[in-house]
């Protein structure tokens, strides 16, 4: 049986060694069979060639005997000479070690870059044009009602924290407190979910909901992106819009509060 297993192994190992542009499943299967055949050979070798070698053993108690402990203490116990100042010396040594280790750990502060400040601003400012991911400015005629698109500050399509989700609703559907900053029915919110930062990419125009695919937070588009379902606790920050002279959508100001997930100083902007 061991001979059979080793011969399977030999022939299949050759196939496995055929990395002549052969497909991944074939390479994987061949190598797997080669490996498994060695295993089979080992098992049959253990079963057939050797008699069952069961052995009974005693468990010695793990604890040292009292004479062993006495011998240890007599060789390594504290010498009498230093007894009076032992505590002071021990404390000072501990202090010195703590000092060095703390110094080393604190030198890792160079790993910390940024802290809170970058979280409080984005690349948006008054008058910045909205642009698509291909950096094309977005015109008032770009979307039809029910449409949605991801937008960035013009020239900054790599700015993760400035990602915006732009939707267009019917002008008549805008509630009175939403009219300002929503020219022609365009409403813009930060695309970063206030729960865990994933882009809120699912838009249902009939329900007027923006849903996040990560943990299913749902935000009411016509109510300042108030969270109505899921674990998000804060609405998406809104980017108030206006239209410039050429009919392109621009930001009226930066967001009124930090974008993305919450953090300790997040309520102060």
């Amino acid at each position, binding site marked *: 049986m061991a001979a059979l297993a080793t011969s399977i192994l030999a022939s299949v190992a050759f196939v496995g060694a055929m990395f002549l542009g052969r497909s991944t499943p074939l390479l994987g299967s061949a190598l797997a069979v080669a490996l498994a055949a060695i295993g089979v050979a080992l098992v049959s070798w253990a079963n057939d060639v050797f008699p069952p070698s069961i052995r009974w053993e005693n468990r010695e108690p793990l604890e040292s005997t009292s004479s062993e402990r006495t011998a240890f203490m007599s060789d390594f116990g504290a010498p009498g000479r230093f007894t009076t100042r032992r505590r002071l010396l021990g404390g000072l040594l501990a202090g010195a070690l703590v000092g060095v280790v703390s110094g080393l750990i604190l030198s890792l502060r160079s790993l910390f*870059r940024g802290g809170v400040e970058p979280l409080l601003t984005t690349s948006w400012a008054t008058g910045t044009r909205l642009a698509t991911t291909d950096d094309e400015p977005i015109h008032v005629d770009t979307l039809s009602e029910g449409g949605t698109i991801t937008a960035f500050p013009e020239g900054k399509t790599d700015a993760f924290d400035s990602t915006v989700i732009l939707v267009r609703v019917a002008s008549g559907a805008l509630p009175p407190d939403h009219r300002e900053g929503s020219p022609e029915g365009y409403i813009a919110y930060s695309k970063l979910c206030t729960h865990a930062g994933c882009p809120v990419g699912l838009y249902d125009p009939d329900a007027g909901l923006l849903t996040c695919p990560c943990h299913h937070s749902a935000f009411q588009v016509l109510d300042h992106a108030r969270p109505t379902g899921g674990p998000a606790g804060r609405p998406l920050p809104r980017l108030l819009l206006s239209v410039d002279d050429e009919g392109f959508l621009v930001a009226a100001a930066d967001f009124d509060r930090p974008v993305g*997930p919450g953090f300790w100083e997040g309520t102060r902007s």
Partner: protein
Amino acid sequence: MRGAVRWLDARFGLARLLHGQLKKAFPAHWSFLLGEIALFSFIVLVFTGIYLTLFYEASGEMIVYDGVYEPLVGTSMSRAYASVIELSFRDHLGLLVRQTHHWAALVFVAAIVLHLARVFFTGAFRNPREINWMVGVTMLLLAVVNGYFGYSLVDDVLAGMGGHIVNSGLLSIPVVGPWLASALFGGEFPSLATIPRFFVFHVLIIPVTLGVLIAVHLAIVWKQKHTQFPERGVSESTLYGPKLWPSYAARSMALFFFVSATLVALGGLIQIHAVWMTGPFLPGLVSSPLHPDWYLGWIEGANRILPPLDFTLFGYLVPSLFFSSVLLPGVTLLLLYAWPFIEARFTGDYDTHHVLDRPSERPVRTAIGAAALTFYTLLFVAASADVVSVATAIDVQTVMQAFRFIVVLGPVAAGATTYLILSGDKEAQPT
């Protein structure tokens, strides 16, 4: 061979050194192999990992792709992502190695969890093995963290979303959140420093630490000898089993080959983390459904179903994400570490135990274990709330609401049922 062995013996005293060790008895039970399966998965991870390290580029710098995979030519992506595409498609061996590596990571953590469950339910963590239990829990933590760093390195949309979520979790920590987040990610997420930093942890710091801890873990088992079920006259002072050489060693080596064969078969036959389908991590992109690797599912489930419990403390914000992604795992880890001491306190049993419990003879511990497993499994299922929603045609918010109840009631039911069944048909109560 006599000559060569004598040559070595003259230099190391091999015969004297090995004689006692090679005839050491190792208790044999199928469930004792789970730890070995974890070990062998780790070895496969190291070998496949070394191959990947030779071809992976740990850089977040953006380039325009111009490599062998046509559909992505002309797309903007990071160097890291491009290198993963190249090694997956330039030759078929690269994809086999990467998929085997990822499968090995999933199996590695699964084997550790099963091994932990076996040790828990049989009481093998008791005196004198408390420290080894804590070494094991540490290795579980490192394996999970390293798995997360690993699939983050490919820098596709899935990795990016994982980054958003971990970043948000760190940010949510009161007072020090933003500092911790910028320390891990090298600035405001996402930052160019992130991938190189994750790479150092994934390839060097954590694997070396794991290697050392594995050695410590095995050395302790060697010294204290393995535990054994009460059978055939086994007692606190005697054990039996096959000798290390040749029986036990042959079987262990065979298991290594079977485990590596399985992992290579999985890597070759079952696609995993097809990064060319999700696309590179770019601003504004997201895909649906989104799930992490299985061992993080329980945290993601908690993230989904925990209602918005955000509150402000003296004007400072504590987001509810803190409870599901920091407090829950933190408390879980703490309970795991402390369990041997918690149980000893409650049972008053501080004695040495080398003989294992049969789970059916310990109704309280087994019931607690059943409740805990149910809890974490239900959270794991909750992480697929959208999949459940599509399958049952129930809207996802209702599904999540249902899970909020199931996740609390389920473990209570499981624990109570287990306790009643086990305490009902025992003959003798343990003291």
